[in-house]
């Protein structure tokens, strides 16, 4: 039903990001480079590599592509971050002074693209904005609030609130209001008037390291996953939030994506995206796996004796094939991105196409236009 295109582009992909009209994708093939491919949604096409951005010295851990301004921000384990802009035929890099003394782990542009946030292993979060007078990107740090490495960051649609998850198993919401960059009226949130770096909520729902935080399109809900195979949904984020945690019987998840206010897709070590939904009662439930698991073909053995003899040859052959991967991704899914072009983005409309990238080096495009039929079939 769901996987429409698979591209095997590297041995391992750390992260990927799409541009505004989904014609190009930037990804990191598990080294210090960023490769930009010209993509096409045709399932039989081979994507062509058009640019290679080489400036970082260690693994590039986060990439984000701003749709309106066409700028790419990358962050790496070498404590640096660069903002790349396309000038003519070349991508030019601008170093961002992050003032970090440990690796950067994740990066995201704010909805209005005047700021971006970088999470790091230095237990600090950097919010960077562009200073016109000096013509460079300046950072403001949020220190002392986290007890361990920050794994993932996400902006609220109002451009001011920020959610972070960390390996101390907590999810925190901060205000990233910067005087001079954000207008005063944006600062009125459900929490009232708040200044920069103030921790508004600390969610302690997971018992393991937390990853993959994402806000819903309206900003009313939030979801993140924990390494204890749980997924947590928080609605009415404000002074009185409501939370729902689901414990899964599967391997932990790594990343989530809200498709609409009531649908969410998550992927992780199971190599199979999972669909969650909330119905009229506003309670989130697991709906189904999205990948059709192919059963491995029955191995033909003429006699019982031949089968037994086959089992003894463990040194040369492969007796454990029933554990072989049967999903489209063969290794952990690390990132899920929506495939809605800028012109079609609408908070009311649900996202129907998304892409996943994983440690097997594949970028897979999923299409959920027929999801309602499938759901109708699932219900008795």
């Amino acid at each position, binding site marked *: 039903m769901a996987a429409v295109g698979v591209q095997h582009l590297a*041995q*391992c992909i*750390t992260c990927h990001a799409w541009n505004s009209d989904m014609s190009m994708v930037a990804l990191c093939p*598990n080294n210090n480079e960023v490769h930009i491919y010209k993509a096409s949604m045709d399932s039989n096409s081979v994507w062509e590599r058009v640019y290679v951005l080489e400036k970082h010295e*260690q*693994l590039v*851990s986060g990439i984000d592509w701003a749709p309106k301004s066409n700028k790419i921000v990358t962050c790496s*384990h*070498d*404590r640096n971050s660069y903002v790349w802009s396309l000038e003519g035929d070349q991508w030019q890099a601008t170093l961002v002074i992050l003032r970090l*003394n*440990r*690796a950067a*782990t994740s990066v995201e542009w704010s909805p209005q693209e005047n700021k971006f946030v970088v999470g790091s*292993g*230095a*237990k600090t979060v950097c919010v960077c904005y562009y200073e016109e007078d000096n013509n460079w990107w300046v950072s403001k740090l949020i220190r002392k609030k986290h*007890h*361990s*490495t920050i794994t993932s960051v996400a902006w609220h649609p109002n451009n001011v609130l920020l959610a972070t998850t960390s*390996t*101390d*198993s907590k999810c925190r919401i901060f205000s990233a209001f910067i005087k001079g960059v954000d207008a005063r009226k944006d600062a009125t949130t459900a929490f009232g008037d708040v200044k920069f770096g103030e921790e508004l909520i600390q969610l302690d729902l997971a018992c393991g*390291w937390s990853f993959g935080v994402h806000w819903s399109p309206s900003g009313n809900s939030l979801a993140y996953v924990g*390494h204890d195979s749980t997924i947590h949904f928080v609605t009415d984020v404000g002074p009185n939030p409501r939370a729902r945690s689901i414990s899964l019987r599967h*391997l*932990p998840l*790594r990343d989530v994506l809200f498709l609409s206010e009531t649908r969410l897709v998550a992927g*992780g*070590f199971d190599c199979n995206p999972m669909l969650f939904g909330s119905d009229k009662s506003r309670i989130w439930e697991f709906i189904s796996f999205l990948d059709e698991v192919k059963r491995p073909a029955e191995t033909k053995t003429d006699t019982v004796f031949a089968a037994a003899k086959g089992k003894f040859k*463990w040194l040369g052959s492969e007796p*454990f094939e029933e*554990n*072989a*991967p049967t999903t489209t991704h*063969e*290794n*952990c899914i*690390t990132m899920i991105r929506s495939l809605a072009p800028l012109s079609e983005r609408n908070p009311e409309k649900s996202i129907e196409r998304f892409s996943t990238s994983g*440690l097997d080096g594949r970028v897979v495009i999923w299409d959920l236009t027929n999801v309602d039929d499938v759901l109708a079939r699932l219900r008795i």
Partner: protein
Amino acid sequence: MCLQNFPCQEVERHNKPEVEFKTCKELLLNPILICRNESEKCLIESSINSLRISIKVKQADELENILAKKFLRFLSMRAESFQVLRRKPVQGYDISFLITNFHCEEMFKHRLIDFVVAFMEGIDKEISELKLSVNTRGRLVATEFLRQFT
């Protein structure tokens, strides 16, 4: 075996297997000890980017003790070619494996698990075979030697 790349929190620009250094308590998971009986056990310690499996094999008598030690030392010395083997076993155990996120990225997870399980199954068999062959050889040599006196 859910491991991921994790840059070191203590030293900049480094990437170390956290289970070996154990500097940050929050990055380690609870170790599991599985004992088949008093003389055989298996310790599994895990962290965010690495996993350490230590095995103590059954050693019933002196001969098995020596055979096991020599055989496992032979394997550990060649740990480079095994990639997931550790050069020195953890204190109190006979052999240790160290699996990091880099191994999981290069190799299939289910094949790594198969390798460790097959290794454990093979070890006992190999040591009994070695013991049998030592005993057989000793008997043959003794028979030949004492023949000259009869």
